[in-house]
């Protein structure tokens, strides 16, 4: 028993036994199982599912038919629907990602996180599972938005490579926004608060070129709108979908997404450790 006398942790740790009981699976298995779990759970929350699918379409119809007639987008666009679709796609990415915050916060409330930790599942796989599920949900609602947009007169003229970049930018933003949302879920003490905190993400597309050209905004807002992360995404989607030149805008968009993702992953890792201490 001499080797187990009182000692302070971190100074003189006991050697791990060479003989460990069965190696656990890696973080990829954990993430896959967590993603399947999150999808199964959200597929049973029918109300939330319908809302997350129907809301973006309703937003698009509202903009095209209620406001569209009064918005002057210049002479580059045949109709407002040609202008607004990228904005609606990003708006729905924001809405969809926000549900991740509620899901993460629900997990933190109960004992399930302790169970996962006692099964040696780390915080990152748990969050990555939620983010993966959010991405799948969002791609479904994105497909739906595209479908309805085609029905009401949206005629994309993107090249094959253009479509690929559109897909890449959309997925990058959905993943980044979902992970930010997961961090918010860890920050909020209740699921209700989590859902409230995600407001800014759903709001971010408004002060951008998503719905109206930024030139019409007051100077101070114009400056913000041109330099916030949503604008390069919208500009690249719009340019690519309409077959116009986009220059390096998609790269700027992807850089923004990568930056947001890096910050969100870092912050959520720290928050997870604080919440589970």
């Amino acid at each position: 028993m001499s080797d187990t006398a009182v000692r302070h942790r971190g100074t003189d740790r006991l050697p791990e036994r060479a003989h460990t009981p069965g190696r656990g699976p890696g973080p990829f298995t954990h993430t896959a199982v967590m993603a399947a779990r999150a999808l199964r759970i959200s597929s049973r929350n029918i109300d939330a599912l319908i809302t997350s699918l129907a809301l973006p379409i309703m937003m698009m119809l509202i903009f095209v038919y209620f406001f569209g007639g009064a918005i002057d987008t210049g002479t580059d666009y045949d109709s407002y629907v040609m202008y607004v679709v990228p904005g609606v796609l990003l708006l729905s990415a924001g809405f969809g990602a926000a549900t991740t915050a509620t899901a993460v916060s629900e997990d933190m409330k109960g004992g399930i996180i302790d169970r996962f930790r006692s099964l040696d599942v780390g915080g990152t796989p748990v969050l990555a599972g939620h983010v993966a599920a959010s991405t799948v949900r969002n791609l479904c609602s994105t497909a739906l938005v595209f479908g309805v947009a085609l029905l009401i007169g949206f005629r994309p003229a993107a090249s094959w490579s253009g479509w690929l970049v559109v897909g890449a930018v959309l997925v990058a933003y959905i993943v980044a926004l979902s992970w930010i949302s997961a961090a918010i879920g860890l920050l909020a003490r209740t699921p209700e608060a989590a859902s409230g905190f995600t407001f800014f993400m759903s709001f971010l597309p408004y002060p951008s070129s998503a719905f109206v050209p930024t030139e019409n905004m007051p100077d101070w807002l114009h400056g913000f709108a041109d330099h916030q992360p949503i604008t390069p995404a919208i500009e690249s989607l719009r340019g690519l979908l309409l077959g116009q030149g986009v220059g390096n805008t998609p790269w700027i968009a992807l850089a923004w997404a990568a930056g947001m993702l890096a910050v969100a992953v870092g912050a959520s890792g720290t928050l997870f450790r604080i919440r589970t201490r």
Partner: protein
Amino acid sequence: MTDPIRPGGDSAATIEAYGLTKSYGKPAVRVLDGIDLRIERGTVFALLGPNGAGKTTTVRILATLTEADSGTARVAGYDVVAGRSAVRRSISLTGQFAAVDETQTGEENLRMMARLTGQPRAAARRRAAELLERFDLTAAARRPVRTYSGGMRRRLDLAAGLVGSPEPGVFFLDEPTTGLDPRSRQELWEAVRELAARGATVLLTTQYLEEADRLAGRIALLNRGRIAAEGTAADLKSRVGGHRLDLVLTSQEAYMKLAGRAVHHSPETLTLGIPTDGSAAQVRALLDEIDPAGREIERFGLHSVTLDDVFLALTSNTPTPNAPTTPEASAHV
């Protein structure tokens, strides 16, 4: 039984802790103030204490979910800090709140846990079915957990803890029956007994002496972050009697005369509590001895020693059965 026994289960399945301390918050509140524990392999051990005594913190440290500020602990032969992953693979934890998904079915929950421990799909399905059968949940396997009763939920939680651990394993059960109705409590006790019968090492926390008594071989009484007493149920109860005979006396004189041998005093109602083992023979003898003429005792009642009784007797300066004091000194505790 066809339980897959994972390799490495031959390590000494004991729990040992030395000088664990833990403080929380600012200003720091000391939740654990030097806990030493030694739990032999294949035994059931109860940590008994009121809310806030440090039971959950102790379990969380031993189950690697929280790190102690100082002190060291080994579970199943591994240090809880340096060998965290190995400890996690050796133990099974059931917390105060059922750690299962409400919207998934019982079967889906267990399959998910099994997959998380690295079992392939087919093995996970088999293991889930086996555990559902064993915890009598087969009929409810395909229902969402939110439709389960409290008892079913705890049993599923126990099963979830078992999914990946080698058997006989090391179990931490943190207040497993708190909030359960009597029938569910019985069912859970049965499940714990079955684990014990298979040779598991179990550390359970409880606020109920009766529960510790029925399930555990040894009991440690935790009070304000320290172990106040430790021993078998019989040891602890013999120190306070096991049962308490409450006597309502006819007069102040009779009360004063008998107060010295009582463990419970209530001068307002002229009531005294006297420790006893609860047997008819001893109660009869006690009554005869105290009141041979049959005039001093108006009424009596017999009840089992409560946690309060054990607790007050073992953790404070209030009277123990063999330590006479005056009623004035101990009437208000």
